[in-house]
């Protein structure tokens, strides 16, 4: 059975994760850097909370292409939500409102996507078929996302092995949720329709840390193309987690990669503890077949309650239902995640499906605390003929919602006898996760009859391939061998100067370390100094040529670059007058004289101090080696 007990997050070891059979895969969503949206010509990447109009829609489930209903779709239909879309006329047209059919796919976006597919070594499809993936939560006004697989079967080199890239799709982004209270959910539509790619990896990561590492790798790889968006929300990942005997559960929309380890740890713990809960239920002879539960209205018994949430609910005409879970005593207190218990699984379902969004939305007899009085529990217990072995769960709301709530409590409790339900869960700030919806399956796919299939020609692949940094995966190793400083390797790998770097070291015979410093470190330093460097390849080349021709000393490169950035371009007029030997000697003598009367504790540092003063005075006009030679001669001889 499931004897292993989860340790605190920081005490878990690799072998602990192996013991529970932790596996995890990623679905990485990355927005593409295009000027327009994917299926209409609205501007991309313009966000604003301002809106001019609202529209109201409802969603109904429809059949998949193979003639089946999807479980999630039916769940969302049960919620009967009013979906409100906020429309900003500058960023949304009648396409996003689902009042105009799609326009042809944005070719720029498709090119970028295909390029990234090639970089993962995927097989590109020969013909793109746009599908409708149903989303009945309303996050897309059509009720489906237009999406298409454009490549399959790639790989990410990772720690000497390959993490599989199962599939990649190009799709339109969804709305941003504003609020979800009761039966009303509100969305902003500005992000809707933005082009993004989804990269799905195999379940090949074996610890929570590996998941984060692979996510980082993918993020940097996408950035190396220079054609993806960066910033908040531009890259989001869904993480799939399962343990031995568990179920694939998807944690949606993890905004930051550093959150991944704790989130996946908690999900693994949740699954493991739910399996242990099942063991316990079976030990009590409660199985899917023998499971017993019933619901009764107890509104009248609680008429005089002093528990405020119930008092208020009853005052506004709501009803209270009591669900009896036979033989469940104490199990709603069963730990699932860090500081989280099985009652949360139930409360979440009630919140999402019965739309009882004001918390607490349930009360249960396993944690009586200071809510309903003992006398009230006793009278309820008697009225519903419960025994000490049972757990009572109260749920309150409008007649319709309270009935739906009671049904969901029973459904979720019964699922505990079977195992772990396939769910999509949302990442919470404390590193735990909560129920979002039933995990959708293949049944929610439907071909998009509005757009014909699109052929991807060999010419197109070749054209894209020619523009790609195909050596991306080998760059790190190569740079290391060339002697590029370790702290510059990652940045150089994804830099837009990566190609220029090769030109500099091969064509101009610049030392790799200097080239990397010039291309990566100097622009960063300029940025820190408040200059936003718009440095073109041409500017860099000109400066390096000046260096090769001896016009610029090595130690003058930074100052020249700074001047050129300020000037907008590089020209010889930016060069300072060269420093004559006489001037150098005079400057050294002056520096030495300046040190007279100054107490220097570490005498051996004297030379360094002089060096610093001179270099500063002759900024960029003379090379350090030359200065050093003169100092050696004049100061110490």
């Amino acid at each position, binding site marked *: 059975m499931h004897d292993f007990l989860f340790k605190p997050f920081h005490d878990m070891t690799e072998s602990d994760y192996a013991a529970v059979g932790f596996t995890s895969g990623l679905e990485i969503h990355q927005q593409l850097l295009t000027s327009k949206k994917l299926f209409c010509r609205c501007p991309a990447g313009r966000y604003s909370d301002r809106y*001019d*109009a*609202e*529209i*109201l*829609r*409802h*969603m*109904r*489930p*429809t*059949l*998949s*292409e*193979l*003639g089946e*209903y999807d479980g999630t*779709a039916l769940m969302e239909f049960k919620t009967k939500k009013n979906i*409100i879309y906020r*429309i900003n*006329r500058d960023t949304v047209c*009648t396409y996003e*409102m*689902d*009042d*105009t*059919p799609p326009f042809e796919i944005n070719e720029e976006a498709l090119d970028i996507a295909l390029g990234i597919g090639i970089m993962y070594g995927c*097989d590109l*499809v*020969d*013909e*793109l*078929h746009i*599908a*409708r*993936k*149903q989303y*009945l939560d309303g996050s897309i*006004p*059509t*009720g*489906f996302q237009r*999406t*298409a*697989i454009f490549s*399959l*079967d790639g790989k990410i080199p990772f720690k000497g092995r390959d993490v599989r890239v199962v*599939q990649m*799709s190009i799709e339109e982004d969804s709305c941003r949720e504003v609020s979800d209270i009761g039966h009303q959910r509100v969305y902003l539509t500005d992000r809707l329709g933005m082009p993004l790619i989804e990269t799905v990896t195999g379940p090949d990561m074996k610890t929570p840390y590996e998941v984060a590492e692979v996510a980082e790798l993918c993020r940097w790889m996408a950035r190396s193309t220079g054609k993806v968006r960066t910033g908040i929300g531009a890259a989001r990942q869904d993480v799939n987690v399962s343990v031995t005997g568990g179920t694939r559960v998807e944690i949606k929309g993890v905004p930051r990669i550093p959150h991944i380890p704790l989130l996946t740890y908690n999900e693994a713990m949740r699954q493991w503890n739910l399996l242990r809960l099942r063991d316990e239920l079976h030990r009590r002879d409660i199985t899917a077949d023998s499971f017993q539960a019933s619901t009764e209205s107890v509104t009248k018994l609680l008429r005089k309650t002093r528990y405020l949430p119930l008092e208020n609910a009853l005052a506004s005409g709501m009803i209270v239902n009591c669900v009896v879970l036979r033989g469940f005593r104490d199990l709603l207190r069963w730990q699932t995640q860090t500081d989280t218990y099985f009652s949360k699984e139930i409360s979440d379902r009630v919140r999402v499906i019965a739309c009882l969004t004001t918390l607490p939305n349930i009360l249960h007899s396993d944690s009586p605390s200071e809510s309903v009085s003992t006398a009230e529990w006793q009278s309820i217990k008697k009225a519903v003929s419960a025994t000490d072995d049972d757990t009572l769960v109260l749920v309150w709301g409008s007649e319709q919602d309270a009935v739906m709530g009671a049904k969901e409590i029973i459904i979720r409790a019964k699922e505990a006898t079977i195992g772990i339900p396939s769910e999509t869960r949302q990442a919470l700030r404390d590193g735990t996760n909560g129920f979002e919806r039933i995990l959708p*399956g*293949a*049944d*929610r*796919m*439907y*071909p998009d*009859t509005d757009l*014909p*299939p699109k*052929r991807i020609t060999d010419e197109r692949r070749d054209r894209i391939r020619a523009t790609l940094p195909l050596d991306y995966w080998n760059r790190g190793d190569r740079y290391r061998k060339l002697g590029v400083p370790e702290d510059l390797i990652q940045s150089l790998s994804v830099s837009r100067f990566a190609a220029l770097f090769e030109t500099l070291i091969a064509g101009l015979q610049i030392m790799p370390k200097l080239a990397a410093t010039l291309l990566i470190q100097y622009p960063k330093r300029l940025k820190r100094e408040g200059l936003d460097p718009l440095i073109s390849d041409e500017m860099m080349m000109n400066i390096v040529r000046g260096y090769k021709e001896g016009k610029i000393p090595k130690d003058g490169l930074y100052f020249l670059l700074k001047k050129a950035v300020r000037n907008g371009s590089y020209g010889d007029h930016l060069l300072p007058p060269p420093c004559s030997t006489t001037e150098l000697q005079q400057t050294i003598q002056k520096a030495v004289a300046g040190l007279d009367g100054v107490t220097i504790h570490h005498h051996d540092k004297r030379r360094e101090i002089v060096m610093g003063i001179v270099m500063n005075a002759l900024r960029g006009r003379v090379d350090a080696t030359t200065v050093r030679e003169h100092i050696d001669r004049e100061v110490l001889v």
Partner: protein
Amino acid sequence: MSSNDLYKGYRGEALDTLKNFDAPIWSDVEITTETGTFKGIILPRSETADPHHVVLKLRVGYNIGIAAKRIRSITISGRKEAHYKIPEKEFPYDPKKPNVKLLGTGGTIASRLDYRTGAVIPAFSPGELYGSVPELADICNLETEKLYGVFSENMGPEQWKGTAEAIAREIKKGAHGIVIGHGTDTMHHTAAILSFMVQNSPVPIVMVGSQRSSDRPSSDAALNLMHSVKTAAESDIAEVMVCMFGPTSDEYGLLHRGTRVRKMHSSYRSTFRTIGDIPIAMVGREFIKPLRQDYKRRRSDTDVILNAAFEEMVAIVYYYPNMRPDILDSLIDNNYKGIIIAGTGLGHVNKPLYPALKRAQEKNIAVYMTVQTLWGYVQMYVYDTGRDMMDLGVVPTANMLPEVAYMKLGWALGQTSDLEKVKEIMLTPIAGEITEREPSNGYLIFQGGVPEVEEFISKYRK
């Protein structure tokens, strides 16, 4: 199964490849190409798609196309044929509820995917409707009958007559209301002709369709169906109406008089508008709110009058500057019996057309004038041009919409070839196609960008 069905939609090298590996559609396969392997089900292919690709449904539900020339082998492990079927449930019967008859002519009010064309084709059965919109059973007892299954552009005189006859038959049999499922493109044409063919109806006759096919989660089909069925079952408006979305939001529908309604946007949900007047009523899930009182009321008799006549040789000509007489001449030479002109402004065409108009007059062809501005009246007496044309036999039709005038002229000529009688029929309003006055709120096209309009839009859901 014939070879065609086995490889539905495939042709050329893709067909040859599938045949070569003996892999018909719906085969569960593993396809190996020069670069990789793909597992999934071979789907039928749209006949309009190219002959170079095989369509595979992957396990995850996505479809992809694989170039036939790259396929090295296909291994078949099974077969999974799609059965696209809305769960059918028998529509419940409640003796206390009114009986509504839903007549289907086509359209996307209920539809499914057609693999042959890759497009959506209509599907229609009471069980399917109940399976997908169970709320209908709260309103009425529903019987359905599929008259036709055509896209609305393929509706014609035969279907119009057949539909009118079916309506009259169902009313005589005691239906409390009639709903007609119809494609939206020509719904207003059919609404107009039914207004003429079926007169003195004792019950509501409600036309309905959808702008987003019912295979989409955000389709307007379900709500339109609920609204139309509610109207047919409960309203006291015994007229031919079009029932479609008022705003684009899922808020309420509008009931438009069949002779004053027009599709005004190629894709919006709220595409139908009453022109030159206001709609008869608003309809929601829980209410029917009349906006006017001058409609014909529901009665308990079954005294409907059917007059299903139509002359097919009628044309509509949309005038444009620089139009040459040969356009009219060709109609005259082809023995057309009636012509509706949609003229400019108050109802004008250019002088070069005059000789052709004279020829039409001499050949006893009925020529009627409407306005392409849609709103407003034909007033041919204002300018000389109009007076000249009236002398050439062109008859103004007041504020009848061009498409409505077209349907009415076909109907009138179907009954008589005596042009005086035709004129009497044309100019005597039967179902609101000509109104004596245009109310000031009969012409409202709000102009976006204007501050007061923007203020209005920000307050009410679009």
